[in-house]
């Protein structure tokens, strides 16, 4: 049994958790819910020992696993009792291959080589990663990285799992895979504490712990709401800053016989030819690792194709150019890659260098980006979107880590743009419920891209 008793935690003057108690018996799953910044990750950090060994905070807590006090156990010994899959997979991989990454924890346990091999094989197969065995984890897609974290946990086979947003950024079939694995582990009487926004976890949850939203650092969607699209566009129009879309070439991206493969991996695309017009609203879907992010990068010239040609805004491409921002804005999947500076206001200040008409930083309080949760960081990075509504948006997994309110706000913004200032390609999964926004749904599958046109209400009538 996992017992948390009288748990209180504060970062300076900011009280995040107060008098929290929780008991989880064998085979139970507790679903941690709450808005971005409500303290879900902090709670998992505290149980795993990241707080206070690596992060300083004032706290009082009794954390018991059976008769063992986890509070007194150093992190390096806790792996015998629990596995903590952190939210950001980026910094968690250090080994040259997925095989080595899974084997590392088992080697530290002193497991015999033959048994390690069996565990690694079964974990890779379970999560459909058998073809990535020798691939460097850093080169996997974000969804595959999330699956790899689950595979490590499966191989380690501890009695308790702490999972921070394990379903975020996963395709529907991968979500089903992870849920099936959790169900199997629960049947083996494993304890789960899962922080997650995805509603799919509901059926597996034995307990729900709703963390207070009142303490959220960046209130959900405040940046979006503070800048209603019309109120943003009006001052831009008055200053003559708004771009006249009609004067720009209609064709934004065209590719011809595009072929691409990562070094040492199987061919991702071959003979791919398509065009994207400036006013199209496209939803890009596909399995984890199918190449959605890669495709966006190829369109922009951030990756070089092995064969074929790409043209952006009518110009043949030889790499990414800062001038492309006049036409399109690309936001990568990794939030930290779209944030610059130490604080949210520094990030905004650097935006003002390219968008001089931007108002001052819209939030009254400034925050260190490193202190924000994953969802809050995404909110900060998306705060610029209403101010560049005329550009063609290329957003990679914009809903990942967002709470329900922030997701709804973003959907509203996308719907508004699709009607009033069309032009976007969004990488998202079907589970994000984005009906009625897009003109076309592009699905990447092993044979290429399948394009389905979505008929509008007018066309249907």
């Amino acid at each position: 049994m996992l017992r948390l008793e009288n748990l209180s935690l504060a970062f300076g003057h900011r009280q995040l958790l107060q008098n929290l108690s929780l008991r989880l018996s064998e085979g139970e799953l507790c679903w941690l819910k709450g808005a971005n910044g409500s303290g879900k990750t902090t709670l998992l950090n505290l149980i795993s020992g990241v707080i206070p060994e690596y992060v300083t905070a004032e706290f009082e807590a009794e954390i018991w696993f059976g008769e063992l006090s986890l509070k007194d156990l150093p992190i390096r010994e806790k792996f015998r009792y629990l596995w903590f899959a952190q939210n950001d997979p980026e910094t968690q991989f250090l080994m040259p291959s997925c095989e080595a990454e899974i084997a590392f924890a088992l080697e530290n346990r002193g497991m015999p080589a033959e048994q390690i091999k069996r565990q690694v094989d079964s974990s890779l197969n379970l999560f459909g990663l058998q073809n990535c065995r020798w691939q460097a984890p850093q080169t996997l897609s974000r969804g595959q990285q999330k699956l790899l974290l689950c595979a490590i946990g499966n191989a380690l086979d501890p009695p308790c799992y702490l999972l921070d947003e394990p379903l975020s950024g996963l395709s529907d079939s991968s979500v089903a895979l992870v849920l099936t694995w959790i169900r199997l582990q629960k049947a083996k009487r494993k304890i789960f504490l899962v922080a997650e926004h995805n509603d799919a976890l509901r059926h597996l949850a034995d307990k729900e712990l709703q963390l207070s939203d009142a303490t959220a650092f960046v209130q959900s969607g405040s940046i979006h709401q503070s800048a209603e699209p019309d109120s943003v566009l009006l001052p831009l129009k008055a200053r003559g800053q708004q771009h006249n879309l009609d004067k720009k070439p209609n064709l934004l991206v065209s590719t011809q016989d595009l072929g691409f493969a990562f070094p040492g991996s199987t061919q991702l695309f071959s003979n791919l030819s398509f065009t994207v017009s400036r006013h199209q609203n496209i939803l890009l879907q596909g399995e984890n690792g199918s190449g959605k992010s890669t495709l966006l990068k190829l369109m922009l010239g951030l990756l070089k194709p092995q064969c074929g040609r790409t043209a952006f805004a009518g110009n043949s491409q030889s790499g990414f150019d800062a001038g492309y921002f006049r036409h399109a804005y690309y936001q990568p999947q990794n939030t930290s890659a779209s944030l610059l500076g130490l604080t949210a206001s520094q990030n905004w200040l650097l935006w003002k260098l390219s968008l001089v008409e931007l108002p001052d930083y819209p939030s009254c309080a400034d925050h260190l980006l490193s202190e924000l949760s994953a969802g809050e960081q995404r909110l900060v990075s998306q705060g610029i979107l209403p101010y560049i509504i005329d550009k063609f948006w290329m957003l990679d997994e914009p809903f990942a880590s967002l709470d329900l309110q922030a997701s709804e706000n973003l959907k509203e913004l996308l719907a508004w743009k699709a009607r009033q200032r069309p032009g976007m390609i969004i990488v998202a999964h079907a589970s994000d419920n984005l009906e009625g926004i897009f003109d076309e749904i592009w699905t990447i599958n092993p044979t290429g891209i399948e394009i389905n046109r979505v008929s509008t209400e007018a066309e249907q009538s």
Partner: protein
Amino acid sequence: MRGTNSFWHPLLHVFICLVLSCLAFMGSEPAKLSILWFTSFIYAAFRVKGGAIGLVKTHWRSLPLLLSLAFVQLLFRRQGDLLWQFGIISLSREGANYLAVLSLRLLIVILSAKALAVLDFKEFSTAFHSLRLPEEFSFMLSYAVHLVPSLLSSWKGYFQSLKLRGIAINKLSIPNRLKIYKVLALSSLAALIKNSEGQAIALELRGFRSSGERSSMHERRFRFFDWVAIFMIFLAAALYLWL
């Protein structure tokens, strides 16, 4: 065994890099150093991604540093025969000699470091495990060796993020450029600390430094060929010093 990309034991590669960089500072004759540089180049070309072409590019990028060294020699070193003079600028034999020695030493160290950086944490761990050195040592060395490449890659990422915002840094005014450099320098330092902390957490969550005996999925022992190679390297190093 797949996963590690070399036939030889990782410790042998660490040893080769160590010997090459030590010899670079033990010799002071340009001819001998040229031989050592050539050896380092061939060795590194087999090890690094991009091979010889990649190394030529590295040399090209090092050119400004070498030229600034040459300039200092031109201005300040006056001993030995005068080879060339123009006004106050002169080039002496000793100056030229010293320039060649310094440049070759620098290039050998760069080549050795590049070859060493090919090794990942797992290989460092295997290498030092065979010497019964603690795992912390492998992690620290692996981290130190990859520090400069990871810093360079984070700067590359920052400039790409700026470009995504439509900011071409070379088209900005000097004050704006300075503003950006200041912000990015602090950010990269903070990111460096955060990443190292993140990596340490990730390792400890999987039992790094935990009590008890470790095992290995692919045990790599020092084989006969590795011992022969070590012996040959010792022999070559002795010959180099003796000549």
